[in-house]
């Protein structure tokens, strides 16, 4: 099994199967509706990209939401100016975010540790404020950038006259809302997984890990680390830009709040929750957070009454009162508790929990090879 998993085609096949059958296996959890599935795929890309920077180089960026926002705005502008086809939008979003990442990375990567984090946070906040008020003609401020009937859409207009009402995003005629939107995002996620897996296993990825473990030592061996960290930063920014443009693809609207520091913090939470530096950990973290945000926040007292309907009246009311603290508007609380428990008992995130379980079943010691460091230690020998 282990040998099989490390074989690329098999790993990719398994991953694709799991992602593409999400509408089926998420049904018992009540999460198999298009919007949430799209979010699962999109934020998995976002977290995966963040992990390339944070997990491999150890640089903790607190400003990744800026790239997400830039990607969204670029994609919506592509819909407004050129065509409702999603491919140019995705390309624009990714490219623009990459460009912005290059600029920000060039400045921020001159520092490391906490100074780097603060710098990225400052940049992200600056972008947020720019989008929120200063650049209102481009971003439409707090209201958010939306499609209108007056948009030029040059390419679409050249091919066909404008229809009635707002057009929807499409991939050569296939509408990108609902399940088809999810499958598009899922395909992107699979591609990103492939790229990310390649980076993890490449000499480039090992260099990044070397930077993480001791940058000074790398420098003393005559290694210029700056281009490597900058490349990682830009790649990770492009992943975020792709995620942002996919948000616009599934729902053609871009708002400044997408760039707020809370959004940057969220992706850090996702990565830590799932497991920093692991391939699929950040994705799991993203799923858990999005699941909580969308499903737990929708439980109201009525729903709870139904859940506890088997209990006698008095007990039921007590149970409802108690659990209503943790659902509905209290979903943040549940998430906070979960996050604390994981950080305290499983510092390596969910993936560490998984490894521990595997080790337990192997009867101790046997599962050591499962962990990421062992795999990366090989080429160094």
């Amino acid at each position, binding site marked *: 099994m282990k040998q099989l998993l490390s074989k690329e085609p098999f790993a990719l096949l398994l991953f694709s199967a799991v992602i593409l*059958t999400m509408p089926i296996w998420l049904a018992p959890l009540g999460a198999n509706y298009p919007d949430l599935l799209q979010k699962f795929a999109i934020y998995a890309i976002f977290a995966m990209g963040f992990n390339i920077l944070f997990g491999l180089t150890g640089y903790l960026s607190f400003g990744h939401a800026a790239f997400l926002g830039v990607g969204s705005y670029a994609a919506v502008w592509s819909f407004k100016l050129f065509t409702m086809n999603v491919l140019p939008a995705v390309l624009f979003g990714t490219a623009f975010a990459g460009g912005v990442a290059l600029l920000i990375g060039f400045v921020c990567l001159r520092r490391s540790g906490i100074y780097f984090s603060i710098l990225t946070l400052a940049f992200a906040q600056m972008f947020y404020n720019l989008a929120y008020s200063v650049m209102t003609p481009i971003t439409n401020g707090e209201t958010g950038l939306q499609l209108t009937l007056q948009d030029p859409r040059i390419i679409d207009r050249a091919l066909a006259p404008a229809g009635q009402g707002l057009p929807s995003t499409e991939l050569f005629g296939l509408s990108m809302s609902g399940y088809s939107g999810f499958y598009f995002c899922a395909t992107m996620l699979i591609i990103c997984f492939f790229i990310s897996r390649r980076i993890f296993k490449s000499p480039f990825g090992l260099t990044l890990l070397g930077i993480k473990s001791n940058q000074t030592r790398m420098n003393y061996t005559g290694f210029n680390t700056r281009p490597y960290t900058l490349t990682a930063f830009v790649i990770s920014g492009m992943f975020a830009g792709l995620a942002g443009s996919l948000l616009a693809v599934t729902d053609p609207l871009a*708002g400044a*709040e997408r760039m707020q520091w809370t959004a940057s913090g969220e992706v850090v939470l996702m990565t830590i929750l799932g497991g920093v530096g692991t391939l699929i950990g950040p994705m799991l973290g993203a799923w858990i957070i999005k699941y909580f945000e*969308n499903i737990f926040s*929708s439980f109201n007292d009525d729903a709870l009454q139904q859940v506890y309907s088997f209990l006698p009246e008095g007990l039921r009311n007590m149970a409802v009162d108690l659990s209503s603290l943790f659902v509905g508007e209290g979903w943040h609380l549940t998430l906070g508790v979960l996050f604390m428990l994981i950080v305290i008992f499983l510092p390596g995130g969910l993936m560490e929990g998984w490894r521990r379980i595997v080790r337990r079943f192997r009867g101790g010691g046997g599962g050591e090879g499962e962990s990421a460091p062992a795999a990366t230690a090989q080429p160094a020998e």
Partner: protein
Amino acid sequence: MSRLIMTRRGLLKAGAASGVALAAPMSFVRGAYAEDFCNMPTGSTVTLGFNVPQSGAYADEGADELRAYQLAVKHLNGEGDGGMLGTFSSKALKGNGILGKKVAYVTGDTQTKSDAARASAKRMIEKDGAIMITGGSSSGVAVAVQGLCQETGVIFMAGLTHSNDTTGKDKKRYGFRHFFNAYQSGLALGPILGEQFGADRRAYHLTADYTWGWTQEESIKNATEGLGWETVNAVRTPLGAGDFSQYLTPVLNSGADVLILNHYGKDMVNSLTQAVQFGMRAKQVNGKNFEIVVPLFSRLMAQGAGENIKGILGTTNWNWSLEDDASKAFVKSFGQEYGFPPSQAAHTCYVQTLLYADACERAGTFSPPQVIAALEGFEFDGMGNGKTLYRAEDHQCMKDVLVVRGNENPTSQFDLLDVVKIVPRDQVTYDPAIFGGDLGPADAKSC
């Protein structure tokens, strides 16, 4: 080299797997969505989606809106005392749900953010099968959700949103607003300001920097400049600034004698409190008393501002102290349920729910095009605002607007607003063409 071959093969296999997996769920998805219009209710219940801010700057309003929605659902299902069902001029609703189907509801948190609001509305539409979405306590959110509802073919009954854009340049066929707007505030407030403060005044605006603030500033400016006032300056302040002292200091040296605060919620509470602390209300400028005006008012905000609100002029959609039968019936049943009077946000949300239910009854179907037709141009009474028209051209309700003043001698913690004048509907009716915009098509969509 060998690596490249592996890649291609891997991708090919992944492609094949995608094809298989794509085909599997699509087959049952198609079956589930084979209906005439989005979320056609097939069982014995009909689901409404209540999308309100439960966290963030407008959480107080959101909580009150949710209370009103729950009360409306009770009344529609024939529980409780019926509230405004008894006074409503249309008698189509019988207290047996909507078209014989019991009303159920789902709730969501907009977080006062467009993204979160749309995600939450999508969940209601895609997962919970909501036939109508209502709520929102910010114009930005209302405009965003309204756009989504137009795309998916689900009717949106806007809650508290005051920007001109909601039924102006961003109006949608599937969106309806009962609440009044900034332009109407200007029309109602203008003459009163003239009466109270004279025609020779110099005004200074502080404006929340987003769609609602901009349209309100413009509307009030137009109204006051029509009186002969001069606008000294209009300064945009960021939403949720907290400290407004840097914006208030220049006011004192600008030669202005009226300060107009285009702020809402906690922003208004903060800016007003700080303006009063600066001693502005005790000042004499140009030989006249310095005045502060807050064009959009709510009781919840008045509660937050405490003493400082006394004597301040503004407009409001509805106030619980109104003496007509409908308002009294609503205040009574809301009070019995929750122990305090409803806010204007609660009132507009309650009314919107009833209006939607009534339109379905009159249309005899849940099919959105017919329901829209039943709402467009609908003339009704007995909802606490006098005779009201749901205008067909822009889906804006035309009704009386209240000009209010912060109560100098409140008799209770809720008795905070004095109604100065009920400005009749004719005076606040305007030409829907002035804002442009296009409603778009009404045809039903399957989601």
